[in-house]
């Protein structure tokens, strides 16, 4: 009869042994990976090593092939050729199943959750186990993981009610639950708030300390520098460099774009007359119903909008362009009262709105670049002159350096080029341009280029109002910043006289000092 102490000792030893086995860090090697889509060589002989227990950054311009490489590594796509070596052993990844079994898990650029399904169903879907679903046990396990990583979910609500950041968190703990030892994150910071980002980074650092290998894909150099130990840079399907961090950011930019980019400093443009005016505007219920908004945007002015997602920015922008009508107050464009008019009348008054969802709301899947230009043309001829349209389209493709042709369909363009197409579709003359996340997901060069185009419009007296989650972008390009918090404007700041910390506090609902509060 063994003593209870011995039993305890044995159990402990077994647990420790088990722990050693499962948390064993994995080193990863990709050798000569090739992957093409039709004529496009998305990955053209990529070799990459990720050391065990490290955070590894992956940088590259739009369309460089980062997502493709990560999808190959997670079994989503199968490579044309090349080897994947895990802990010195070559593995075959015929499907994502093989990758998960090998301990490789991927968080996709757009988190692949099932929106109408509940959180718990999303959690268990695809997991191995008995025929019958034991949702109660899964709920317990989810709760355990949530506690460990400091997340919080209601297991019974549909995933569509989660924010993008929460969907990511759900995916990450699901992958950990499935036993992922290599975690791939494809641009995880594009759609989430600063708070959620801080939480994500803390989690990733903790995971790496436990022996997890993390591959982190991003466009933001500061994030990579903040988080990773090593970084690999890709351009046009090839690896162009590798560096130990910290490395000066200029070197990384040079690797990515082959040159040091000179960022365009914005020069001031004299402000003119009022272009967009809100007089005590409010909605009946929900967001923006508590405090009336009064606001005056001058021609040539750039107004940035900050705030956590869903704090009322969407409603505000839609009020600006007639997609929503206020219940009280007046909205005027260049002195004309357009309060109860529709978007069409606002368009006629030279107001244009570029929504966040490029493919959902801005572009039409299946239509070519030329067809998009024809659609935006407010030409009244019944018959389309296709020859002229094609000529004009070719010219615009050239002028806006869209990587593609006039016959490319919208969805075949990479994210950055979709954004260029949207800009090319803007009417030449505009009074007010409203935008949501104008550079989300764009590489630095593209983002810089986009802003150069936008700021140039100020010369013609265009006012720009844009919402962004990127505080640096807000500070750099705005004259004035409005901060939204839970359905109202909590602060109005001069961009030149404020900083990231002050805006950050306001976004979280805390007022720093008493200045800058709208009357």
């Amino acid at each position, binding site marked *: 009869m063994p003593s209870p102490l011995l039993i305890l000792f044995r159990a402990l030893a077994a647990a420790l042994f088990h722990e050693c086995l499962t948390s064993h860090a994995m080193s990863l090697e990709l050798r000569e990976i090739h992957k093409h889509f039709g004529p496009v060589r998305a990955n053209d002989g990529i070799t990459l090593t990720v050391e065990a227990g490290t955070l590894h950054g992956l940088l590259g311009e739009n369309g460089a092939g980062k997502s493709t490489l990560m999808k190959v590594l997670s*079994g989503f796509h199968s490579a044309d050729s090349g080897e994947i070596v895990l802990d010195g052993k070559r593995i075959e990844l015929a499907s*994502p199943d093989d990758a998960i079994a090998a301990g490789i898990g*991927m968080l996709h650029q757009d988190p692949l959750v099932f929106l109408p399904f509940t959180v718990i169903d999303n959690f268990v879907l*695809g997991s191995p*186990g008995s025929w*019958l679903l034991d949702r109660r046990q899964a709920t317990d396990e989810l709760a355990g993981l949530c506690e460990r990583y400091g997340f919080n979910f209601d297991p019974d609500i549909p995933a569509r009610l989660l924010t993008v950041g929460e969907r990511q968190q759900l995916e990450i703990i699901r992958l950990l639950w499935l036993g992922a030892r290599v975690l791939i994150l494809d641009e995880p910071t594009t759609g989430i708030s600063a708070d959620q980002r801080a939480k994500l980074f803390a989690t990733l650092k903790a995971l790496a300390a436990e022996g997890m290998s993390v591959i982190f894909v991003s466009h933001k150099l500061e994030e990579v520098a903040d988080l990773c130990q090593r970084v690999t840079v890709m351009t046009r399907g090839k690896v162009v460099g590798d560096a130990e961090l910290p490395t000066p950011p200029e070197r990384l930019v040079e690797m990515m774009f082959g040159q040091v980019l000179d960022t365009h400093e914005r020069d001031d443009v004299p402000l003119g007359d009022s272009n967009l005016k809100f007089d005590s505007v409010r909605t009946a219920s929900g967001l923006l119903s508590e405090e009336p908004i009064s606001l005056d945007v001058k021609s040539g002015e750039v107004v940035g909008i900050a705030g956590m997602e869903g704090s009322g920015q969407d409603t505000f922008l839609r009020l600006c362009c007639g997609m929503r009508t206020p219940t009280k107050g007046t909205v005027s464009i260049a002195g004309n009262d357009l309060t109860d008019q529709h978007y069409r009348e606002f368009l006629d008054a030279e107001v244009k709105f570029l929504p966040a969802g490029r493919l959902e709301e801005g572009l039409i899947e299946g239509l070519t670049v030329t067809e998009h230009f024809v659609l935006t043309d407010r030409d009244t001829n019944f018959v389309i002159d296709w020859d002229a349209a094609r000529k004009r389209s070719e010219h615009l493709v050239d002028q806006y350096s869209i990587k593609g042709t006039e016959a490319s369909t919208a969805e075949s363009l990479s994210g950055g080029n979709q954004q260029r197409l949207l800009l090319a579709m803007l009417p030449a003359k505009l009074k007010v341009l409203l935008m949501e996340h104008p550079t989300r997901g764009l590489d630095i060069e593209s983002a810089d280029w986009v802003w150069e185009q936008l700021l140039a419009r100020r010369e013609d007296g265009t006012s720009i109002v844009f919402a962004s989650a990127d505080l640096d972008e807000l500070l750099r390009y705005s004259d004035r910043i409005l901060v939204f918090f839970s359905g109202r404007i909590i602060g109005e700041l001069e961009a030149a006289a404020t900083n990231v910390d002050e805006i950050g506090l306001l976004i979280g609902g805390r007022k720093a000092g008493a200045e800058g509060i709208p009357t």
Partner: protein
Amino acid sequence: MSGFLNAFGQMFDTATIASIVAGASALMFATMGETISEKAGVINLSVDGSMMLAALAGFVVAFETDIVWLGFPAAAAVGVAVALLIAFANIKLSLNQVAVGFVLFALTTELSRFMGNSYVGRPPVAVPAWDIPGLSSIPFFGPVLFQHNLIVYLSYMTVIATYLFMYRTRKGLELQGIGERPEAAHARGILVNKLRYFYTALGGALIGIGGAAFSLDVKLGWSDRPTRNLGWIVLAIVIFGGWHPLRAAIGVLLFGALQAYAINLIPEFPSLSQVLPSIPFPAMILALVVVNWKALLKWLDRYPFLRAILRSDPPTAIGTPFEVD
């Protein structure tokens, strides 16, 4: 007015209710089949034709072999064959499901007329009645549920099984996943297209069994296009049912009740005897309009429980092929 009420009163006879349950078997099978197929993302638009050809196959095999049960696997095979054609055309050839389904509807309908010609008016073969011992003597529930035949019992057990499978098992959740967001299912290691073939075939088998249930149980024997239009009603009921097996089953019973009501009305309004049997079809469309009526749904938003029952979002990826390179 009193005519409507008289006919309505008769609806509550035990015998009427029992006949609605018995008569629903064919639609029950086919509706479950279509629900499963659409949940997986594949619309089988050929139901009306597949059911017809399956009804013929079931009858012919049962008639020639004189073994009624052999009619069912034969009918299921026809349903599977048509369903696999749709799946193949969509998955491998990237053809439009609706177009292929419609062509197959026309083809199978004509095929059933042509091949069934010599069987018109042949003596029927019927599934033998079999009361479930014990259960059948319960008052009311006995006659309504347990005094039919094996096919009727199987029809409502299929509903329960479909429900339990979809919502209580791992495989069932995967089935919903491949119709909702195939790339997400793929990323979780689920073999999307293989399962789409499987569930379309399974759905086709049930549609086929529905056809055989019609010619061997509901309306015996073969005539010209006997199941005419039932397939379209199946498609409507799947939508009415919000792609939920239990709600769809209620839809089937509702349709059966409407049919019974229309028949009860005939003696009251003999002059309308030509029109009344077709009333259930527009009535079904009206029901569809009502359950999807925005104002009603908005009002129901205040009652989450009721709203959950009535919510009907189609599987998001329904009708779209899935490809990864």
